[in-house]
C-alpha cells in the first residue's frame, strides 16, 4: 500500500469514527473536569465518620485512583503514601447544597452581582453556570473549611430563577472545568416574600402569595404542553414546537431529569408547594432556607423531600421570624432528610460548626444526636438532594475519594481542617501552603484568601 493511500484510509477511519459518535457530540457546557494528579494514600488510625451513619474508631482509609479503595482496620499500605491520622477525624467531603460562590463573588461589588435575572418572574431559561466566576476567592476559603462539592444556585428574586449547577470545588479556568461529572441539573424556585416584593413593588405580578402560586402553575401548564408536543413529534405525531430554553428546562423537571430546589421559609407555603408538585407530577428534591421545616417535618418525610436549613439565622424578614435552633434535629427525628446549608461565603467555611450548634441546642431538650448521624446533614443528605449520592457523600468503597481530615472532632469550635482530598488528590493542606490553590484575584495581596495559603 502506498503511503498516501494509507493516510487516506486513516483519514476515512477518523471521519467514520466521528460520524459514529454523532450522538455523543459533547453537549454545550458539558463537564470537562479532570481530577488533579493523585498518589495512592493511606490515612491511618483515625476516627472515621462514614456519612452512612457509622463511626469507625482507630481505622484506616485507602485512597487509590481517585476512589475510596478500602476502609477499616489494618489496611495493607502497599505502595501507598501513609499519613498518620491517629489524632484526626475523617469525614466525607463536605457538600454545600446552597452556594452562590462565583455568581455573587467577592469582592461584593455590583459588577459581581450575577445571581438574579429579575427581568421577569419566571426565567427558567437562565443557567447559573453561565455566570460562575472561577476566580472567586470564596472557593478557596470554602475548601479550607472542607467543602469538596457545592451547588451554585441562581438567587431567589424570581418564582423560577433558572438552572443551578453542581461543582467540584477545584477552581478551573471556566465552569466546565469544575462541573461535577454526571450530576443532574437543579431548578431554583422561590416562595414567599422575595418575588412578590420585587415584582409587586413594580406594580406587576406576583404582588401577593396568590400571584406567586398562579405564576408557578401557569409555568407548569406551559411546560407540560411543550413536553407533550415534543414527545408526540418524536412519535411522528405533529410538528415539534420551536426549541424554547425556558420550557425545555421546565420539561426537564417534569421528566425527572432536573431536580427542584425550592427556596421556601414557611410551613404553610412548603405544604402548598408539595401540592403543586403533585398536581404536575414532579418531586421537590429539597426546600431551602426551610426556617419552619420543623412544623411540617412529617410532611417532608412522607414526600421524600429534604429540608436545607441554617442553624440560627432569623429575623431578617417576616418569613424568617420563627427560627428555632433545633430545626434540623426535629426534621431528622421525624425521619426526613435534614441538611445544613450556607447561602453565604462565610458560613460555607464552617458548616460543621452550624451542625454543632444544632446538636448543642437539641441536647438541651434531650435529643442527643451522635456525631456519626449529624455528619450526614452536610455530607450524604446534601449528596442525596443533589442526585450524586451514588458518586460521593459517604466513605464507601468505590465512591469518589472526596475526603476531609480534621484535627479533632468536626463539632468542636477549635477544630480545623487539616487536609482535603478531592477525587483522591490532595487539594488542601493546612501545614503545606504550597499545595493550596490561590485564585487570580488573590495574587499580590499580603494574605491570600484569609491567610489560607
Amino acid at each position: 500500500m502506498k503511503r498516501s493511500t494509507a493516510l487516506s484510509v486513516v483519514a476515512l477511519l477518523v471521519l467514520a469514527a466521528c460520524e459514529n459518535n454523532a450522538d455523543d457530540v459533547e453537549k454545550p457546557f458539558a463537564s470537562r473536569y479532570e481530577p488533579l494528579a493523585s498518589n495512592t494514600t493511606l490515612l491511618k488510625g483515625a476516627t472515621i465518620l462514614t456519612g452512612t451513619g457509622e463511626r469507625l474508631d482507630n481505622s484506616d482509609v485507602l485512597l487509590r485512583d481517585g476512589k475510596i479503595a478500602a476502609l477499616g482496620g489494618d489496611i495493607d499500605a502497599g505502595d501507598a503514601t501513609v499519613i498518620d491520622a491517629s489524632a484526626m477525624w475523617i469525614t466525607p467531603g463536605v457538600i454545600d447544597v446552597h452556594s452562590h460562590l462565583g455568581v455573587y463573588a467577592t469582592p461584593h461589588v455590583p459588577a459581581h452581582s450575577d445571581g438574579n435575572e429579575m427581568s421577569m418572574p419566571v426565567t427558567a431559561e437562565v443557567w447559573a453556570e453561565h455566570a460562575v466566576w472561577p476566580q472567586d476567592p470564596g472557593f478557596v476559603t470554602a475548601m479550607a473549611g472542607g467543602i469538596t462539592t457545592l451547588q451554585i444556585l441562581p438567587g431567589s428574586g424570581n418564582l423560577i430563577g433558572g438552572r443551578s449547577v453542581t461543582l467540584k470545588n477545584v477552581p478551573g479556568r471556566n465552569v466546565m472545568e469544575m462541573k461535577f461529572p454526571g450530576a443532574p441539573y437543579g431548578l431554583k424556585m422561590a416562595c414567599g416574600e422575595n418575588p412578590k416584593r420585587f415584582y409587586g413593588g413594580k406594580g406587576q405580578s406576583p404582588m401577593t402569595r396568590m400571584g406567586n402560586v398562579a405564576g408557578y402553575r401557569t409555568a407548569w401548564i406551559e411546560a407540560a404542553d411543550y413536553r407533550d408536543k415534543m414527545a408526540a413529534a418524536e412519535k411522528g405525531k405533529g410538528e415539534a414546537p420551536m426549541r424554547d430554553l425556558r420550557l425545555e428546562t421546565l420539561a426537564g423537571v417534569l421528566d425527572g431529569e432536573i431536580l427542584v430546589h425550592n427556596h421556601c421559609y414557611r410551613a404553610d407555603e412548603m405544604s402548598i408547594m408539595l401540592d403543586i408538585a403533585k398536581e404536575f407530577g414532579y418531586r421537590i428534591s429539597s426546600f431551602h432556607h426551610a426556617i419552619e421545616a420543623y412544623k411540617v417535618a412529617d410532611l417532608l418525610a412522607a414526600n421524600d423531600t429534604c429540608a436545607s436549613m441554617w442553624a440560627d439565622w432569623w429575623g431578617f424578614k417576616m418569613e424568617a421570624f420563627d427560627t428555632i435552633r433545633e430545626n434540623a434535629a426535629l426534621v431528622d427525628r421525624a425521619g426526613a432528610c435534614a441538611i445544613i446549608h450556607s447561602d453565604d461565603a462565610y458560613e460555607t467555611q464552617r458548616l460543621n460548626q452550624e451542625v454543632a450548634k444544632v446538636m448543642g441546642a437539641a441536647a438541651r431538650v434531650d435529643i442527643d444526636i451522635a456525631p456519626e448521624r449529624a455528619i450526614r446533614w452536610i455530607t450524604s443528605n446534601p449528596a442525596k438532594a443533589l442526585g450524586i449520592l451514588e458518586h460521593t457523600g459517604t466513605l464507601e468503597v468505590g465512591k469518589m475519594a472526596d475526603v476531609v481530615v480534621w484535627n479533632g472532632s468536626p463539632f468542636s469550635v477549635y477544630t480545623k481542617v487539616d487536609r482535603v482530598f478531592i477525587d483522591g488528590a490532595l487539594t488542601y493542606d493546612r501545614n503545606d501552603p504550597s499545595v493550596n490553590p490561590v485564585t487570580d484575584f488573590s495574587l499580590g495581596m499580603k494574605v491570600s484568601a484569609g491567610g489560607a495559603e
Partner: protein
Amino acid sequence: MIRLSNITAAFLLVAFAPLASAETIAYTGATVHTMGPDGKIENATIVIRDGRFEAVGSGLTPPADARVIDVDGRIITPGLFSAMGRLGLTEVSAVPATVDYYQSGTRFSASFDIADAYNHRSSLVAVNRTGGVTRALTAPAPSDSAAHMPKQVFSGLAAIVQLGERPEFIANRAIAMVVNLGGTGSAEASGSRAAALLAMRAGLDDSIDYRRNKDAVERGQRREYSLSIEDLEALQPVIAGQTPLLVAVHRESDIETIVRIADDYGLRLIIYGGAEAWMVAELLATKNVAVILDPKLNLPTSFDALNARLESPAILAEAGVEISFAGDRRSETHAARNIAQSAGNAVANGLPWIEALEAITISPARMYGVDDQYGSIEPGKEADLIVWSGDPLELTSNPDDVMIRGEQVSLVNRQTLLLERYMQTDSDKPPAFRK
C-alpha cells in the same frame, strides 16, 4: 484560699448603692473565670447581695441569709458583652416600622441618640439573653444605603443596655459616637473618603469653635457651622477626649489616617471592622486604640478588606491591642449570642483561650470605660454571670443559668416556646391548641 477579707466586702457594700434585686444568692462549687485580678478560682463561692457581687473566693462559706446554688464544678463567667450591634432597635430587619437604628433626615447627625428608641421587650433581647448576652452596645447605623437619603459622617450616639428583666434598661447612655468612614463611609459623604474626612474634621473644628464661643453663637455673632447646635453639643464630650469615637473602617491606610486625626484632636478612638487592622497592630497598641472585629472575616469582601485574615485577633492581641468581637450584620442584631462562637474561632486561629473570653466580657467594658461597673466577677460590681453547661466557647455548650444585676433571668423566649409546641408530635391537637 479566701481572696477577699470581710472588711473589704463590708466597705464595698457601703460604697455602692443597691440595685433592684433584693435576694442574696450564693453560688458554690464553681470554676470561676473572674476576668478580674483574681483570675481563675476553683471550687469557688460567689456571693451576690443587692444586685452586686459581695464576695468571691475559693471555699468561702455562704452567708446564712443566702439562697445557695451549688453548680457542681461547672464554669461560671461574667455575662457576655456584645461590643457592637443594634439590639432592641429592630424586630424584623425587612419591616421598616420596626427598624430604628437609622434616620432619614438631615436635622440631626451626631446628636441622634439611639437610647430613646430601645425596646427592652424586643424578642431579640430574650433570645440573646438565653444565649448568655447580658450587656450590649446598641448603636445607630449609617443611613440605609438602599434608600436615597442624605448622607452623614456622624451616625450618632450609641448606648449600652443591660438585658435583664427590670429597669433601668439603659445602662450607659451616649457612651460612644459612631462614625462611618472608608469605602462605604465615603459613599455616605460625597463619594471620596477625603471628603468624608473633611466633613468629619469640619464637625470637630466647629465643635471646638462652638465651645469657645457659645455666647457669641447665642447672640448670632458667629459664622455658620456645618452641624446643628444639638450635634455640636453632642460632640463636646468627644472633643474633650471623654466619649470615644467608634469608627467603622477596614482599610489599612484609612485606619492610619483616622489614628492621625484622633491624635491631632486628642480623641479616644475605637476601630470597628478593622479587617486590615492587623497590618498596623503596633501603631494601634502604641496609640491605645481598641478594635472590634469579626474573627470570621477572611474574604476580600470589599476592596477595603483585601487583606482580611483569620489570625487578626491573635495578631492584634499579641501586639497589645484591646480587642472585642462583633459579627456581621446578622450577628450584630439577632444573633448577638454568636460572639461566643466568634471567640472560639479566634482561639482556633491562635488567640489564647482566656484572651478570647476577655474579648467578650471585660474588654468591651474597658473600651467603653464602664469596667468599674460590670464586666468581671469582682466585689462591688453589678452581678452579671453565666453558669455554663460546658466550655463557654464551645458550640455544644449552653448557659444553664443567666444572672443579670443579681437576678436570675428567665430562659424562656419565642424560640423555646415554638420548640416546646412542635416537640409535641404525639399530640392529637393542632399546634395552636397545644399549650
